[in-house]
């Protein structure tokens, strides 16, 4: 748990996370914030109770005859239990899970900034960003929703200051230029609707210009 968090998960995102409807890249950020924030954990569990209430009220479907017997017969069968990853350094369990337990393999992006892509698919992408103190956070070209969770250090933009555990929620209406604070390098977990294809086609020479 991290103390001093001031920017939390908005309710609609928590409901969508609770229901499983939130796309994978955002779900990873939400699960990571909840790992750091008991306030949002309590909120998320409250939504699970609402989900549980909906489940209780559902009229059940008839089951196949043998299902109950099959399940009861399997209770004592050996099963492999997945051992979930715990927190390592600034990386919460869900990030370590996405990294498959290994340290991040950073790729340089220019100006000392580095990234590690954790997932890139049709529903969006999520990556770790490493921004040296005092540097601007690269523009990862969001067309829709963008979630940025600070894991280490801090950044500031037009909307405020974001320290460890803080979550910035941005949509395309927000024009912002986040800059890492002096001191520690800033490490963020960032998820966006946009596919990565655009940024990877930008010629290398133009990168400083675009701050990618």
């Amino acid at each position, binding site marked *: 748990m991290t103390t001093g968090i001031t920017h939390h998960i908005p*309710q*609609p*995102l928590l*409901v*969508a996370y*609770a*229901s*499983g*409807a*939130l796309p*994978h890249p955002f*779900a*990873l950020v*939400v*699960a*990571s914030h909840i*790992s750091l924030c*008991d*306030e949002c*954990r*309590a*909120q*998320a*569990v*409250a*939504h*699970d*109770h*609402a*989900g*549980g*209430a*909906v*489940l*209780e*009220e*559902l*009229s*059940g*479907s*008839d*089951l*196949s005859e043998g*299902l*109950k017997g*099959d*399940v*009861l017969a*399997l*209770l004592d069968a050996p*099963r492999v*239990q*997945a051992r*979930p990853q*715990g927190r390592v350094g600034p990386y*919460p*369990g*869900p990030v370590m*899970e*996405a990294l498959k337990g290994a340290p991040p393999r950073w790729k340089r992006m220019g100006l000392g900034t580095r990234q590690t892509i954790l997932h890139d698919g049709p529903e969006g992408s999520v990556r770790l960003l490493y921004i040296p103190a005092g540097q601007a956070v690269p523009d990862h070209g969001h067309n829709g929703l963008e979630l940025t969770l600070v894991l280490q250090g801090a950044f500031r933009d037009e909307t405020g200051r974001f320290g460890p555990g803080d979550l910035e929620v941005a949509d395309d209406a927000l024009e912002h230029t986040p800059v890492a604070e002096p001191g520690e390098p800033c490490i963020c977990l960032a998820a966006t609707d946009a596919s990565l294809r655009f940024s990877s086609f930008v010629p290398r020479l133009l990168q400083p210009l675009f701050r990618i």
Partner: protein
Amino acid sequence: MFTCEQTYEPIEGGVPVAAATPRMSDDRSALSEQTGWMLRVRDARDKAAFARLFDHYAPRLKAMGMRAGLGAAQAEEVVQDVMLKLWDRAAQFDPDRAQVSAWIYQIARNQMADLRRKEFRPVPEALLTPEEPEPDAAQAVALEQETTRLRKALSALSDEQRQLVEMAYLGELSHAQIKEGTGLPLGTIKSRIRLGLDRLRHELKGTRP
């Protein structure tokens, strides 16, 4: 449409605060049948109690799977996997922090998301639990009362609104469609869960709240 209940009211006067409540470690008689069954599964690996939970939840879980677009056979696979997880993970069940239905709901939606994506859905770090947790029946009972209130609030919604809440929690709405909350009074239950978390944190530190 969705009316909003974004601001959370503080805990009402009638709800006891965990720290001020005498311990009633063995008095779980006020808890629901489902919680009782689940505790017998957890503490005694009681298969008869598991069978009762199966009878209660398996048909609902199948309905949940079919609402999510699964065929009957696939929905039953989910039922099987969820019920086996409930058995395997029973040690993690803590009635101070979650009701059975909420606990099963989150297992089920993870299972369905995993099935859809063929990869594991990100879940928060599990909370550590003390070696010998001190059961707090008052907290569990209070959480149960909040859950009963929540179910009453759900049934008191207009048909249209209740349908929207169902759609939201059954994964049929995107976050962009859930603009303004769900109209359910979640503030007090959140505060109650928060108390349970705070108590757990203190217990882990070896200090009492």
